[in-house]
């Protein structure tokens, strides 16, 4: 059933964290309605949290018993690229509303392509700009998804183009 008998770096800690979270969830679930009735609002959450806790605990015990596999946490589990991208994503989410979709995405794409693709600024900026234009056309104009405008007066620009097209058609 359990084929891997070695544990990856950090795996046991992860299992223990999951068990701890499950225990907190169980306690919280008990707080909803206690053992009032089988049909009480808290009974299902309690049962589920109990399953989580028991299974997480058993996973943790199994993992602790397993022999540790080689490799460090940084290279085996969270390589620098993954950590960098996760951090960039967080910055992207924070800046999305105040700055707006277009500038944030352009900066995000350029930096990440520069880092991952190992290309110079101009090339990365070019790729980002082209892909962003395509994404903007598909999602904003065709799919009509609303995205935060931020500092770019998108509506005015779109209206300008529409007027231009309307003017050209006349």
């Amino acid at each position, binding site marked *: 059933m*359990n084929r891997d008998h070695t544990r990856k770096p950090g795996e046991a800690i992860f299992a223990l964290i*999951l068990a701890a979270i499950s225990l907190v*969830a169980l306690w919280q679930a008990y707080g909803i309605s206690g053992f009032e009735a089988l049909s009480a609002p*808290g009974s299902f959450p309690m049962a589920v949290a109990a399953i989580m806790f028991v299974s997480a605990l058993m*996973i943790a015990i199994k993992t602790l018993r397993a022999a540790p596999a080689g490799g460090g946490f940084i290279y085996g589990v969270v390589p620098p690229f993954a950590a960098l991208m996760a951090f960039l*994503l967080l910055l*992207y989410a924070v800046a999305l509303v105040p700055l707006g979709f277009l500038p944030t995405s352009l900066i995000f794409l350029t930096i990440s392509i520069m880092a991952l*693709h190992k290309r110079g600024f101009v090339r990365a900026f070019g790729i980002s700009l082209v892909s962003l234009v395509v994404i903007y056309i598909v999602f904003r104009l065709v799919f009509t998804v609303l*995205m935060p405008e931020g500092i770019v007066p998108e509506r005015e620009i779109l209206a300008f183009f529409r007027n231009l097209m309307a003017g050209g058609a006349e």
Partner: protein
Amino acid sequence: MDALSYFFIPWINLDLLALVAIGTFAGIYVGAIPGLSVTMAVSILISFTFSWEVYPALCLMVGIYMGGVYGGSRTAILLNIPGAPSAIATALDGYPLAQQGKAGEAIGLSTTMSFVGGLIGIGVLAVAAPAVSEFALKFQPRDYLLLAVLGLLLVGSLSGESLLKGLFCGALGLLIGTVGLDPLTAQERFTFGVVELWGGVSFIAVMIGMFGVAEALIQLRHVDTTPVKQKISRIVPTWGAIRKHLPLSLQTSSIGVIIGALPGTGGDIAALMAYDHAKRVTKNPKVPFGKGAEEGLVAPETANNAAVGGAFIPMITLGIPGDAVTAIIIGALFIHGLNPGPMLMIDKPDMFWFITGALFLANIFMLIFGLTGIRIFTKIVEAPRAVLIPMILMLSIVGAYAVNNSLTDVYFMLGFGVLGYFMKVYGYQVGPVILGVILSRLIDENWRRAIISDQESLGLLMKGIATSPLSLVLFLAVLMIFFTQTPFWARIKAKAKAKSKAGKP
């Protein structure tokens, strides 16, 4: 019948037709790029369709699903990397074929056979779903409860290596699904006094986080691997080849439909079982299995596409997803105000026929796009991941934001992305989590209905289960699946094996 005419709506409405085509096309290519799964495509793209009407949104989803299941076979054949879990079995014989320089034939055969499988799956869906939903009207709450538990157990135990991890993931999903105001009593559950949590954790946030962000971050671990180039020759298979494999494909399609229709099992398991079946029934294969047998390609490819139609049966008639993708589609239907379940067939039979029509159309587009456009295909698959991944991450954020125009969802999504990343790295499956989130309300409500109708007595509930044939079968199935996954069962099996060996002279 009026509702039946809705079958043709996606065919005659040009906008809808185009959306099915775009969806199928996108599905094929996303499914074909290693690391980009069909689940990822569906979860990110669906979030952009919530402001749409139901019909166009459904057309796009159905297309992506159908195309994605097929698309995974491409990279399985060309690179020995299954683009989707449902194509794992395809790689076993598909890749050896490509190594022998028969990549074109292999792709052509798998495309045609996927079409045959898809067709049979849709046919069964059209015939069986109305009957199943009529039958499902007789289901008691306890039957729904058992069925949902069964589905969750199946996903948890079959998709991962460890039952414990599967159980944990399923339970985690169920717990996430309970956050918010209790639907029956409006009591707060796990809200920690935060008003934003009253409506619950956005299902989209969980889904995009786990299937979009987590998956993309995982892919970053091997961002530098470059795809191998392959020359592709003849692609359209000969009529003789199709005729030769037709009997087998009919058998494996039936396997696909049945496995797909079981709640909790989808195309990946169907494909593996079909492969196994082909191995058993093909007495004298021209080429041995695993070395490039055409039968080993036909079986999984028919089965996984047949499973698509099959998976829609429990989804539409019972509201119970067959796999992660159907779980996402159910979630999307909820958001569009539809309630998959036996009442859907009664209240909105047009919706059912519309979906069936769109599936049929997607199957045809799959055949067309599959047999053409090989040049573009190789270009797209060669697109560097270093460019694709940042774009996927960006779309994940925008998608999570777009649903409610709220940053809370985005932060939740990122949180689930990081959690999903570690879960994947440490061998926890995220499929059961998403199934759990979708099934949580159904299980909770039906549990409470069942136990209330039995006067809060577990004894009476068990008596009810024991005296109803349907409930009893479901209950025994749950017990059996659970038991066969435990170490006790492994021990019993080992003992039995040792005995039979000792018994032999």
